[in-house]
């Protein structure tokens, strides 16, 4: 009943172009769509801008994409972690650009992209280094920064179960950025643990409606 297709990881990422902005779900490894990132490495698109909460952990997933030299810029809230050696090395060598965005502004900027909001005023970051170059405005006596949407050409997200109408449910805190990124990207690819028939998910409990999902890729847990 929808346009959502069931695809292999390779089919789903086939059209990602050089220079694309790719939103990558996950908070650390929870919700990280590793199989989709592996397929993107295989596919070969380069000069990518990656938007994700972190900048890769260990040597797999997002870290592997960075290590393969495919990423021009990372927009994230928290690149530096105990196991972010791949990013750290590239950054110190001047081989990757970094835009640090407070986590809530990052989420809200993607939410704005999905929701057709042109820009919004956030109180987060006022008076800090991250306010540099941003417009400020005082509203009802409080200071705000003007923040713009972050659109993705593609979103790679991890979810728990998808139905054939493209509806997604997540599991526990692995939900994190998935629903926001699904709405913010032109093409959304969801890695799910299982695919069920339309009607098998409770319509009250659907988190991401199928309208936001172009490809479902089943990857056993």
């Amino acid at each position, binding site marked *: *009943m929808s346009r959502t297709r069931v695809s292999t990881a390779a089919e789903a990422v086939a059209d990602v172009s050089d220079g694309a902005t790719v939103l990558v779900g996950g908070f650390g490894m929870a919700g990280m769509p590793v199989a989709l990132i592996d397929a993107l490495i295989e596919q070969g698109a380069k000069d990518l801008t990656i938007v994700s909460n972190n900048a890769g952990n260990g040597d797999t997933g997002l870290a592997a994409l960075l290590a393969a030299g495919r990423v021009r810029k990372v927009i994230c809230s928290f690149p530096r972690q105990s196991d972010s050696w791949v990013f750290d090395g590239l950054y110190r060598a001047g081989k990757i650009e970094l835009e640090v965005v407070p986590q809530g502004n990052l989420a809200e900027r993607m939410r704005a992209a999905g*929701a057709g909001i042109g820009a919004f005023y956030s109180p987060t970051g006022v008076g800090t280094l991250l306010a540099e170059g941003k417009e400020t405005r005082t509203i009802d006596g409080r200071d705000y920064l003007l923040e713009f949407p972050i659109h993705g050409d593609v979103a790679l997200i991890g979810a728990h179960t998808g139905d054939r*109408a493209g*509806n997604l449910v997540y599991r526990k805190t692995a939900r994190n950025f998935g629903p926001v990124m699904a709405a913010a990207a032109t093409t959304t690819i969801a890695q799910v643990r299982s695919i069920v028939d339309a009607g098998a998910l409770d319509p009250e409990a659907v988190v991401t*409606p*199928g*309208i936001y999902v172009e490809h479902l890729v089943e990857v056993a847990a």
Partner: protein
Amino acid sequence: MSLDRDGMARVIARDIPDGAYVNLGIGQPTRVADHLDLTKVVLHTENGMLGMGPLATGDHVDPDLTNAGKQPVTELPGAAYFHHADSFAMMRGGHLDICIMGAFQVSAGGDLANWHTGAPDAIPAVGGAMDLATGARDVFVMMTLFAKDGSAKLVPECTYPLTGLACVSRVYTDLATFHLTPDGVVVTETFGIEFDELAKRLDIEITRPR
């Protein structure tokens, strides 16, 4: 023969591609659902649902499940519910392929007037009309081509208060179907009227498809 309301609904339904996400405005546009294969086209209702089914009757009437016109409706497999901010985020964010609305007037440039007659004593009520006009990728208007007083409703410039600017892409009427394109207004089909007669009765320039 000119089309009756049901005929207009059928013509619109014919032009909605499989896989489309569609919002049907309050009133006449809801009739379009009768001619759609709802296993292939997904209906959105702005009061918080995708996968809306046909109108509910008898024991299927549920006061918790209505369309935007507050009529009882049904739920299809694959449906999803969401709240109002999420529903209009979906609309405003450009995720709906098509919405179908009635109109008082449409201009040749695609301006839409369908929320207010402009009468000084009218109580203004806009509902979701401006959000739909601005948000859906394509806005199809369904209306009779001429008002009861004989004046054309497809006009050079709207005289009624606007709902949205340059938002309408097609106008489906009882006498003809119009595609509003960057190159002008193209009549793609007529019903019970000749093109030349149509051209004479309208104050806008119309062309035949190339």
